[in-house]
């Protein structure tokens, strides 16, 4: 008889506060679901769904190109342009923020911590709210959308860039210091070659996100394909809604594919 056969391994002790957590979660969920005003669907809901689905399958092909303008292709092109420019502006703006927020680039933790806080503050303001404010400043149109995307993306890009700078290998920097390089030379020959592929890859990633944002900016009048879509929705022109949705899905899929292929080669 070997004793260890009879020895039963104790189950890991469970957290004593477990039940309290479950109760709290249950309370939150009861509060959340009780507050949903579910009064049944509108009688027209089925009809409209059917109309939209038929609209997607029988799109209004004439809308793809209209000689007098305001057609699908021009809307999509404008969306693309907004997102290209917005991404470019935010890439330029976020580089100083990234070096500010990177721990290994500042002497004290307070400096990089404050940089990180500023970035998460910028990130928390939705781009559509920024666009509403820029519309007041520069008037409705795609330029307001460009500025909104440019500012909002700084929050996320700055953080990703800062992470990239923090993960940098310090060897080349030390080698250049020991060879007597000045700060600019260190930046140019040791830092930039290391972080550039990461920066470019994140920029492309943000570009993909910005494409989606640019597609909705038109809802509030900041340019792009969103404006004709909202217009078609409010005039119940379902065939046009269908073709616009189709256009957005195709454009975003193609952009995702191209950008994904480039990103794979970069990193």
């Amino acid at each position, binding site marked *: 008889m070997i004793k260890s056969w009879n020895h039963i391994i104790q189950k890991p002790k469970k957290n004593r506060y477990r039940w309290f957590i479950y109760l709290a979660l249950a309370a939150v969920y009861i509060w959340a679901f009780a507050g949903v005003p579910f009064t049944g669907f509108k009688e027209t809901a089925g009809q409209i769904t059917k109309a939209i689905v038929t609209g997607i399958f029988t799109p209004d092909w004439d809308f793809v190109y209209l000689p007098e303008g305001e057609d699908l292709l021009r809307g999509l092109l404008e969306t693309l*342009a907004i997102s290209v*420019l917005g991404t470019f502006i935010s890439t330029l703006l976020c580089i100083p923020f990234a070096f500010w927020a990177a721990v290994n680039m500042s002497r004290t933790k307070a400096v990089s911590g404050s940089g990180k806080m500023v970035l998460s503050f910028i990130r928390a303001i939705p781009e559509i709210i920024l666009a509403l404010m820029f519309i007041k400043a520069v008037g409705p149109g795609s*330029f307001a959308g460009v500025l909104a995307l440019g500012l909002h993306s700084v929050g996320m890009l700055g953080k990703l860039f800062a992470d990239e700078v923090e993960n940098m290998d310090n060897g080349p920097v030390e080698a250049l210091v020991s060879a007597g390089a000045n700060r600019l030379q260190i930046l140019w020959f040791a830092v930039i070659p290391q972080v550039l592929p990461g920066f470019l890859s994140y920029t492309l990633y943000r570009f993909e996100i910005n494409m989606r944002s640019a597609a909705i900016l038109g*809802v509030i009048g900041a340019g792009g394909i969103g404006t004709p879509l909202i217009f078609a929705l409010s005039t119940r022109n379902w065939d046009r809604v269908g073709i616009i949705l189709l256009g957005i899905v195709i454009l975003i899929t193609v952009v995702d594919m191209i950008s994904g292929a480039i990103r794979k080669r970069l990193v």
Partner: protein
Amino acid sequence: MSANAELKRPKAPGKLKHYLTAAIVLLLLWGSAIHTEATFGELIEGFPNMFDLLEEMFPPKWSYFDNIVGAMLETIRMALVGTTIGAIMAIPVALLCASNFAASWWIRHPVRFILNLIRTVPDLLLAAIFVAIFGLGPLPGILALSVFALGLIAKLTYEALETIDRGPLEAMTSVGANGIQRIIFAVIPQIQAHFMSFTLYTFEINVRAAAVLGLVGAGGIGHYYEVTLGFLEYDKTSVIIIFTLAVVLLIDYTSTKLREKLL
């Protein structure tokens, strides 16, 4: 001698590719700038307006806070309900997508394709379409958030499912467990922390999204942006922005801490 050494030195890699890339990027930027009619003159001209706007926004009219607490709670509620529904729906979908659970190529790839399609439609557009179908109110917002959550959580979960350790699964098979038992004892313990983390992450995103859904009439605090901006009451708008920021940052912080504990 020196000429010989010169010959042996490796050639610097060609720079043509970089020049071409730079040229393409510049061309893209130039074309975009023309297309959006973006000019620095306009920006400089518009900048004073921007400061006027900021001046009007401060000081915030704190008394407006009482009017928007209800809408803010509705926003959080929408995000919570939407994320939960999406997360529950994501479980079977993720199982259908994972290559080690759905055996057939013909199930896996069509489902993944539909998931990709779902993720290309921005949430605000989904909400706008659901508003057209179901009418104004938080219900279309919740549906839009659920669809978005489904797309994101299902993708992240099936990728995590594909990387689970096969050992426990084989051990369960060898002691004669059936399919359900294998999932309960070998799959769920491996995946649940990841799944909860993805759900929390999606909840963070959905709170931000829910805050603006009101702009298309899908419930939540977004509606008040339109109301206050429409009446040019910028001091009230700034209260909404500050309140939203506080809630979003608080939820982000809590959720990040929870996720760190989970993984």
